[in-house]
């Protein structure tokens, strides 16, 4: 679906954490991002949105969210529990 180029990783998170079929996962992500379904695979729209919301991107700027930082934002945005993010936050706050 395009991974961080579009919204492929976000849809994948919902299949993994929510056992969602593909259409349900796309609907969920589109709703959370306030986008139309077709926007999820639109590179122009998604590049801008990912930059604004700190979700990581294909060509990250040096001050942009990447890796764990982006994953923390994704967990918040999608309202899901990601084990690596939980562990990271536990280490930060522990």
């Amino acid at each position, binding site marked *: 679906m395009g991974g961080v180029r579009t919204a492929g990783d976000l849809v994948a998170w919902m299949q993994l954490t929510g056992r969602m079929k593909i259409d349900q996962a796309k609907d969920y992500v589109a709703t959370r991002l306030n986008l139309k*379904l077709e926007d999820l695979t639109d590179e122009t729209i998604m590049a801008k949105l990912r930059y604004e919301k700190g979700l990581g991107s294909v060509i990250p700027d040096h001050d942009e969210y990447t890796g764990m930082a982006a994953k923390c934002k994704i967990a918040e945005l999608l309202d899901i529990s990601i084990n690596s993010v939980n562990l990271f936050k536990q280490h930060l706050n522990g």
Partner: protein
Amino acid sequence: MREVTTSSGDGSKIRLTEDELRKDIVAGSENAARKGKIDGLTEAEINHMVDIFRQPGKTVSVESGMEVIVTDDGAGISASWGKPSAGHALPMSDHQNILMYERVYCGDTCGLGFPDYSYKPVKSAIGYARSHYKTISMLTTIPLIYGSQPNMGMYYHPTGPIESPSDYFREYDFEKAFQVQEDAAQMMRKDIFYVAEQLYEVGCEAINLDTAGSAGDADFWGCLSVVEDIKSKMPDLPVEMGMAGEMVMGLHSKMIYKGERLAGMYPHRQAEIAARAGVDIFGVAVNSDTSMSTPYNLSRTVTFTKAAALHTSIPIHANSGMGVGGMPMTLLPSVGCSTRCAKALVEIGKADGL
């Protein structure tokens, strides 16, 4: 009459007339329907598949809006691995490889594993697996899925501690042959749970039981049981399970899980029992016949995949590559075949991913 160029199940190029193409697609669907006791493809679906093979482009793609996500069993990490793992042997680390897969190739998820790709050897190298996973997961944004094979056969002599059931079958000592399989399944179950628990402690985002049931129904029983164990102790650890083949082999034949006999199960019933065990994504694996055409093999796969997708509430990812999912049994299948298999599995087979 215009001919269509495609591949045989062994990878060699073949040409089919449109009549031959349609005949193979119908025969493939009928074969799957008969074996699985499921519905065959409708006339409209057969026409759709004929159209997919008739498209003149070398590659094809799904219609806009029908894109699905991809999970893998080592494809994402293939650049840094060697030939025994179908890798490209590039002099780069797994860390670099996975970041390249995320940001250059734009995979939706990425698999990580140990080059000796079974849970039994991972147990011995668990410290390496933990540090490897934790370090890479700090750098990635896409889901990082730790994959390995249950591979119950490794628990038998000479690579494992348990006597081989074939030694007892040869002597008609069936009870003992059943018992050693059950012992191996329990041992495998404990090892997989140990690895899952150890990885969960370092932030594992998801785990993949890849090629479940490769040693028959006792192997599949062990896989289903450990998923239940994992979900009971670590409910927020997503589990993906991919099958070893289209039918669960009855090497034991009496293994029962949640009241269901496992031997002889086809994909739609495998998916259903996997969902009941707690699996989050299920991978359908349908075998290719090397002596038949890709349209025949793909039609069988699509028929089985559609039944599984309609029968089950969890996402279905169709395994597609190297002898499964309609693909020829070769390391380097043509892109004409791989893209046509992907399109048909999604558009007709209703797969939620590949």
